[in-house]
């Protein structure tokens, strides 16, 4: 079983590495979106510090969502997805493998790049640390929830934007507690643990339900 899981993860990582850009694009998208705001909003320090958590999380939502479109699309159009459905392996394991690879390629880079954003928006070091931790717990949830949407919209015209309609509303709790944690960290003496426990609870729930729903979605879409 673990063998299969590793095979899928390695396959998707190899595929991404073949197109070197793939790895960096999500990260750059994130950076560009985050950098656009000061251009539109103005560059006062106080405002920036105030809107930073919201901007970072909305940008992370969008970046993760944009990349999701590709999660199953290319496998679908070249027929390898239907071959996967026909392998004698539990589909949920294959799905989890693909989601993990996806997160390594799109979620993890956001976590690593977060300090840069912290600098741009004049965040304190603690706030930046909190932001990284929140992203580390939150982005896998984004990938997991998003996978359901990606499976359901597979092969549909206008898939990208349709996908965003389906899943952006579902991302809201992550957005609220993710940015809430960062915002709270700016207030001395505030209690952060509740935020992180909630995010972790979401992650757990997503880990359990999302592969099932995604697998069901894939079976429906491939038909």
């Amino acid at each position, binding site marked *: 079983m673990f063998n*299969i899981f590793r095979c899928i993860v390695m396959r998707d990582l190899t*595929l991404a590495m073949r197109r070197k850009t793939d790895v960096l694009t999500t990260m750059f998208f994130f950076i560009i979106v985050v950098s656009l705001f000061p251009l539109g909003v103005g560059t006062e320090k106080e405002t920036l510090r105030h809107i930073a958590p919201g901007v970072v999380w909305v940008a992370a939502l969008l970046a993760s969502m944009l990349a999701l479109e590709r999660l199953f699309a290319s496998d679908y159009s070249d027929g390898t997805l*239907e071959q996967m459905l026909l392998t004698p392996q539990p589909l949920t394991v294959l799905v989890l493998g693909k989601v993990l690879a996806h997160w390594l390629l799109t979620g993890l880079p956001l976590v690593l790049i977060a300090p840069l954003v912290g600098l741009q928006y004049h965040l304190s070091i603690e706030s930046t640390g909190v932001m990284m931790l929140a992203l580390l717990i939150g982005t896998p949830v984004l990938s997991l929830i998003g996978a359901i949407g990606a499976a359901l919209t597979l092969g549909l015209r206008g898939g990208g934007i349709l996908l965003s309609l389906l899943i952006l509303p579902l991302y809201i709790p992550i957005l609220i507690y993710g940015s809430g944690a960062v915002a709270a960290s700016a207030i001395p003496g505030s209690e952060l643990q509740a935020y992180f426990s909630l995010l972790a609870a979401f992650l757990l729930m997503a880990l359990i339900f999302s592969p099932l729903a995604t697998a069901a979605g894939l079976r429906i879409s491939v038909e």
Partner: protein
Amino acid sequence: MLEIVDLACIRGDRRLFSGLNFSLMPGSLLYIKGHNGSGKTTLLRTICGLFLAEDGEIRWNDKNVRSLCEDYNKEVLYLGHHNGIKYDLTGYENLQISATLDGDDVDEDKILYALAKMGLAGFEDLPTQVLSQGQKRRVALARLLINSSKLWILDEPFTALDVAAVDLLQSVIAEHVANGGMVILTTHQEVALTAGQVQTLQLGD
């Protein structure tokens, strides 16, 4: 043994066929005929479980395939209109991954041998993207040589292949049947294989 009992399929709002019955013994080949749009692809996808029939049952060794799930998948190999290979990976990598997923334990030599036999010696390490239409099809067909499934379901396997490759594929299929395998195939091309003594099923009129 594969048995199809009273199968009915609907696509959109057209009833393609209903009350379809047949069975397939080990060591035999079923050739499905029919004009364009008669429902051949739909039937094949239904048999391998990608499409949900409206009615009826598919039985493998007397058990409904829906209850067998992954055990049935192990016995079936399907090749459809799509090649089912990743264009960014090389032929070698493609075969290796599909072998792992199929749960077959194959070594490097076997894969290289399969590719060479399909006339792709020298192309093993190119991303399949840069291969021609027919060469891509050959990579997909090389799976037949390393797979251990009993039942092969082939939807127009001869498209895009040149004469030499068509002959080769025919001999591969014949050999599988001779070894007790089962094959279901469709094709619009006249090939020697389907002219012989094989079961045929006519869809449509």
